């Protein structure tokens, strides 16, 4: 499997604060990788480095074999806080990423309607962000990244603010999209069970300065659905193992 993203000895400091120690990892094509780690260990920072949004001092990051210096059109980023423009409607926010890139085509009406449907936003296309719930705003942000049909989807706790039910539903949609379009996904999350449920691999990070202390391959059969969390004993084993790694007992 060829690496889509490869990080070699990446280090990052903000002033005197060393945030990332020595991060090395490879992420393959169409892999679903989750990143787990304590708050403040540098997960968001790592994602920003991969996206080419922040410069760094040590090591190197390559995307499709080329050094990352600026954001690439093939990467979609879903930020930890939803970044919607308050003056645009849901529809225009969803299409913003496409509209800003002259090389990208707006999706067909049917494809757009399907996206809206998938996100559970049907009927809200003409609403403005302040008329949405926090969770709906997150869904619009995810939809904006998906509308660009990126090869790589970088997601920073996109489901953090959602209730368990919506979270499960969106997780399953995410899996479906990932399987259908063969995207590479890097997902930062705080939920161990979510990481196990979704991922091919889970990268566990240490306290700041963050390094990857364990790279856990999740060998659960696919397609998965939330029932594995109850029915597959192997699932429980993974959760226990990751909890121990993260110091949760």
């Amino acid at each position, binding site marked *: 499997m060829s690496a889509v993203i490869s990080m070699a000895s990446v280090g990052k400091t903000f002033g005197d604060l060393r945030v990332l120690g020595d991060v090395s990892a490879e992420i393959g094509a169409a892999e679903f990788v989750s990143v787990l780690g304590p708050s403040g260990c540098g997960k968001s920072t790592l994602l920003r480095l991969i996206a080419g949004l922040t410069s760094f001092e040590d090591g190197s990051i390559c995307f499709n074999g080329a050094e990352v210096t600026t954001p690439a059109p093939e*990467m979609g980023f879903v930020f930890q806080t939803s970044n919607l*423009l308050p003056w645009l409607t849901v529809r225009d926010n969803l299409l913003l990423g496409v509209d800003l890139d002259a090389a990208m085509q707006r999706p067909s009406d049917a494809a757009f309607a399907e996206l809206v449907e998938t996100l559970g936003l049907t009927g809200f296309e003409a609403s403005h962000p302040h008329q949405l719930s926090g969770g709906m705003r997150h869904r619009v942000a995810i939809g904006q990244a998906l509308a660009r049909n990126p090869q790589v989807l970088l997601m920073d706790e996109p489901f953090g603010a959602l209730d368990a039910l919506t979270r499960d539903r969106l997780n399953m949609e995410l899996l479906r999209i990932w399987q259908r379009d063969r995207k590479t996904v890097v997902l930062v999350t705080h939920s161990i069970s979510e990481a196990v449920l979704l991922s091919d691999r889970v990268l566990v990070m240490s306290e700041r300065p963050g390094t990857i202390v364990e790279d856990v391959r999740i060998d659960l059969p696919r397609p998965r659905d939330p029932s594995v969390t109850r029915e597959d004993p192997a699932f429980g084993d993974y959760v226990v193992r990751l909890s121990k790694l993260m110091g949760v007992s």
Partner: protein
Amino acid sequence: MSASPITRDRLISIGFFLLLGLGWEFGVRWSGVQSYLLPPPSAILAELWQSRAPILAQSLVTLTEVFWGFIIAVALGVPIAALIFFSRTAKRTVYPLFVALQSIPKIGLAPLIVVWFGYGLTSKLIMAFLFAFFPIIISTLGGLASTPAHLEEHFRALRASPMQSFWRLRVPAALPSILDGCKVAMPLAVIGAVVGEFVGSNDGLGNLILTASGSGHTKLTFAALIAVTLMSLILFYSVAYWERFIWWRAA
């Protein structure tokens, strides 16, 4: 059925001002203050009605000066502020120049401007412009600087060009602040025009106030003052009206 709180509030404020007017009316009558010093409101309203033709005509003169002074202040102020915002050179040259000019008492400039531009529309238009210009510059600068950092980063992630970031992010984010500046500038433009008319003019409401009070015609002075105030209020609210189109300030 009890009155809603809004109508109740309205009644209270109408009642308050009615009471104030009555206090003035009867205070003046009973105390025997000469009407050329302080006329009662009833006399002022009567004067306003009687002299409505000249007052309206002079109002139109002043309105024209204010309107163009304000429009030019916005039309020049916003782009100049953008220039100051983006150009380091402009920030070091144009900006301090404006700050220095703003520090000159504009009332003191009025006689010079009349000497340079005459008794007509131009000198008053310039006075209105001078009063309105600076708040627009300052509010535009503040608005342009207020784009949230996370949105800027988001636009970078979406590979937006500098032009796209400016028009689709920075400008809309600045609009609420620019409108605030316009709301401050509008009444100032009225003051500027009236000051200009005080100093050198053959017409306009400022001139009317000056000539009426000079000839002891206090009722007319008050009536003209009311006209200026009304004009200023109407102009203010016609600027504030645009707020509904940039409702996202609250979001």
